[in-house]
């Protein structure tokens, strides 16, 4: 793609301005590139963790269903439902945000899921119910973790795309454009100098007597 010249008046002051703009743009390009490499590093890390969390969840869910089926088979569905009515609890999820190289990602932390007394009668229930409850709590933690990771992954992906566009714009449009314009201005000045010299020579010839 040919470099696009920026429309400027061919003056020295414009040349100084363009040079300043070029050096600033080059500095920004370095920052953007560094940021892009950090975002990519974080994205890959988050992707790996998301896969791990998903795998963990896929492994945990059958365990939970198995434990629940066992408990309901042992106590009967109605009896179990009656016991579980008393176990309702308010979940405490601390939600905040954290910042990864300028990308604000959510941060969740589940608190107070593990309880010594879960609310159901210990006399009327067996260890099957305990195990099912324990596994459910573990599953809940993984779900919250996965929610955080997945959203972070999406946000990081979007930011990488945006930063890549900026980086490309700088590399292929802005910097070549500025360089071409600076080169054009230099050529213009040299041409002006040559014209001036030619004119002076012409004047000198005209002024020479005889």
């Amino acid at each position: 793609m040919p470099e696009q010249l920026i429309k400027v008046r061919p003056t020295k002051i414009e040349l100084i301005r363009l040079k300043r703009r070029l050096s600033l743009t080059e500095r920004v390009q370095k920052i953007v590139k560094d940021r892009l490499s950090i975002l990519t590093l974080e994205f890959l890390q988050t992707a790996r963790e998301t896969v791990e969390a998903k795998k963990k969840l896929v492994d945990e869910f059958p365990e939970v269903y198995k434990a629940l089926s066992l408990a309901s088979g042992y106590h009967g569905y109605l009896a179990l439902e009656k016991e579980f009515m008393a176990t309702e609890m308010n979940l405490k999820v601390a939600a905040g945000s954290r910042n990864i190289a300028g990308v604000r990602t959510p941060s969740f932390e589940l608190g107070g899921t593990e309880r010594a007394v879960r609310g159901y009668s210990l006399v009327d229930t067996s260890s099957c119910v305990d195990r099912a409850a324990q596994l459910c709590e573990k599953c809940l933690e993984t779900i919250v973790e996965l929610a955080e990771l997945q959203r972070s992954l999406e946000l990081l992906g979007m930011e990488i795309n945006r930063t890549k566009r900026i980086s490309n714009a700088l590399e292929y449009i802005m910097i070549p454009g500025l360089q071409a314009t600076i080169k054009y201005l230099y050529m213009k000045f040299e041409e002006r100098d040559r014209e001036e010299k030619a004119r002076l020579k012409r004047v000198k010839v005209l002024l020479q007597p005889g």
Partner: protein
Amino acid sequence: MPDKLTYQRILQEYLRDELRVLNAHLPRKQKPLSDLLREEYPHVVCNDGSTYLFKRKELEYLASLIDSDEQQALLLPMLIELSSDQGEAAVILGEEVEENIISKILGMPVTRKQARITIYRPQLALLRKKLKTTTQYIFSPARY
């Protein structure tokens, strides 16, 4: 379709925004680990007014690595400085406590020069995996 001049202006705006966004997340004031452990929701306030939340598990992990005196001296979040003149390296701003923690996490000795600990990108990935919320990136435009 924007003309050439408008396009240039849009790009300039982008750049300005980019620089503003980069360090907006830095904390106004770092807090010692011992104070954060006492908070119900351990957090710091950032330059842009937002709240940065620490994970309690991470804080407890850090606390397990050092003794109570060092917990008082360790200021969080730890800042990781990036600049292009260092190539693949990153610098962690910190004193002896940070040096101890990083060498324990990485399982290797690290060197500290003028309150700066230099590590490389593969080590950075490992460090960030362990300390997600207790470390933060800082971009220093002055060094670019």
